[in-house]
């Protein structure tokens, strides 16, 4: 329970951060050319100044900026993110519709990067400075330098155009209505390439950290003790080293959550996935500032939640954290 209160305290500490972000971005967006009503009028094909004034009054845009900010924050407390004039419905429901593909994509990429980063990191550390290590480390460097959108495009060329193994975009096949297990398989096949694309750079980061952390732990005294008492090497690695070497990896999940969300903007655009990232891109292009602000809120919230989960996970892996309080 102590760990829960510790993580809870950190969660509470992130609320001011959240408000700081929202106030900052809100003020920033006031400097943007054009407001919701301009976008709305453009959507309707123009209109006269009188109706524009009326609309501004309706949306509360005729108030002073501090008043608007106060209004916005007060609505936010009630989880009302405002109205998207482009999509013609509340921002909250627009975002909720777009959230599942992004969360699915992020979870899949994270699992992919974490698992293979761990495996390759361990292999590299076990054969340090021999050919498996050199090969894996070199590949890691190259993956790190690969622009994800470019990798995605090349993957489409190879796997969708030439080999025709996988679909080149979209979240599911809309031509045929499917249900149950077939739908799951269909969605999964659509997510293979996006997952690889988004996960690649994180795979590179994870394997590098895992390798370094394995090498560090392998030199510690308790590993020598474990070896001295006659445990075989597999046992030493899986039971003694891995658990300790995992700690930096878990920390990294929290640190990289934001980067991953940012990366999904690009990856979702490449594979035309109807997710949060693509929504962010669309709202910039369409000047839907209300939605953009809503996305800022939700993505910051997502990062905070991921960090909360990481805190809990961290304590589970390392009981010493709990003892210190």
């Amino acid at each position, binding site marked *: 329970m102590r760990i829960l209160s510790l993580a809870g305290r950190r969660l509470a500490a992130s609320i001011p951060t959240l408000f700081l972000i929202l106030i900052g971005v809100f003020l920033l967006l006031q400097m943007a050319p054009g407001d919701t009503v301009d976008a709305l009028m453009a959507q309707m094909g123009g209109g006269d100044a009188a109706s524009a004034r009326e609309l501004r009054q309706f949306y509360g845009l005729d108030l002073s900026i501090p008043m608007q900010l106060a209004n916005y924050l007060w609505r936010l407390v009630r989880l009302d993110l405002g109205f998207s004039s482009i999509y013609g419905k509340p921002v909250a429901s627009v975002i909720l519709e777009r959230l599942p593909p992004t969360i699915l994509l992020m979870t899949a990429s994270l699992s992919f990067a974490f698992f293979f980063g761990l495996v390759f990191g361990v292999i590299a550390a076990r054969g340090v400075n021999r050919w498996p290590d050199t090969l894996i480390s070199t590949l890691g460097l190259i993956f790190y330098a690969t622009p994800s959108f*470019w990798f995605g495009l090349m993957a489409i060329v190879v796997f969708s155009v030439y080999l025709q193994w996988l679909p080149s975009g979209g979240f599911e096949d809309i031509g045929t209505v499917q249900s149950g297990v077939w739908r799951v398989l269909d969605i999964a096949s659509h997510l293979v390439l996006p997952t690889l694309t988004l996960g690649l750079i994180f795979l590179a980061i994870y394997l590098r950290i895992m390798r370094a952390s394995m090498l560090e732990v392998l030199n510690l005294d308790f590993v020598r003790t474990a070896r001295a008492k006659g445990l075989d090497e597999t046992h030493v690695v899986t039971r003694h080293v891995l658990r300790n070497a995992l700690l930096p990896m878990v920390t990294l999940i929290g640190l990289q959550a934001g980067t991953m969300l940012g990366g999904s903007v690009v990856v979702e655009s490449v594979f035309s996935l109807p997710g949060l990232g693509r929504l962010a891109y669309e709202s910039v292009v369409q000047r839907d500032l209300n939605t953009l602000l809503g996305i800022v809120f939700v993505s910051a919230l997502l990062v905070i939640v991921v960090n909360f989960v990481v805190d809990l996970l961290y304590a589970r892996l390392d009981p010493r954290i709990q003892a210190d309080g």
Partner: protein
Amino acid sequence: MDALKRYFRSPAAVIGLILLLVVIAMAVSAGFLYTRDPLSLAGRPLIWPFSNPRFLLGTDNSGRDIAAQIFYGARISLLIGGVATAIAILIGILVGAFAGYYGGWVDNVLMRITEAFQTLPNFVLLLVLVAVFGSTLTTVTIAVGVVSWPAPARLTRAEFLSLRNREFVQAGRTLGMRDIKIILGEILPNALPPVIVYASVVMAVAILLESALAFLRLSDPNVASWGNLIGLGRDVLRVQWYVSAIPGIAILVTVLAVSLVGQGLNDALNPRLKSR
């Protein structure tokens, strides 16, 4: 010059340096080799690479020379990467130095702001900045710099925290030196090496960020940038995939070069870490 010797002993670091020099040479020679505007019409559209000696790397969908765009793109990438990194490091050092040196409420406030920047995904913030200030070369460069400063700030702060109570700093205080002089003249030179090494990471990320933005057509469309070309090639990806493929390799090589040089510098400057 031990560090220099150590640097050249690592093959990866040397390869990185060579690649970086090649990219720099491309940027410098672009003006001599291709005297025409790289974005001007040069020939028939969609000529495959190596099929016409006039266009070694072929032409894109609107008949512009890809090779010329690659050479001029090196300028843009290095320019944006370099300037954005300088901005990020400068802000990072300022914030980190004041937070680390003064501690207390200054530290609290500055770290809250840093945390806010780190909680918001930097690409999302980049989108917001571009939506507000538009996408010219200048605004994009500044925007990339502005989203990249938190990590260098934290690094600088950590260095300052460990240095601020050393004897030489206390000596400076006893001598009655002003704070700003202690920060800039005494502590900063000692805190700088790891921050400078970290600049290579910032630069690699900055180049990737700008190319992603350009790919989404949210960067300056009036300059020859690699990301722009990839975005353009996307329209003809199914058959003429080389239009996107070639600039992607250029980005990969540049980012790889910057990271290798950074890692080489790091190993050369911290020899003890290297030994394992």
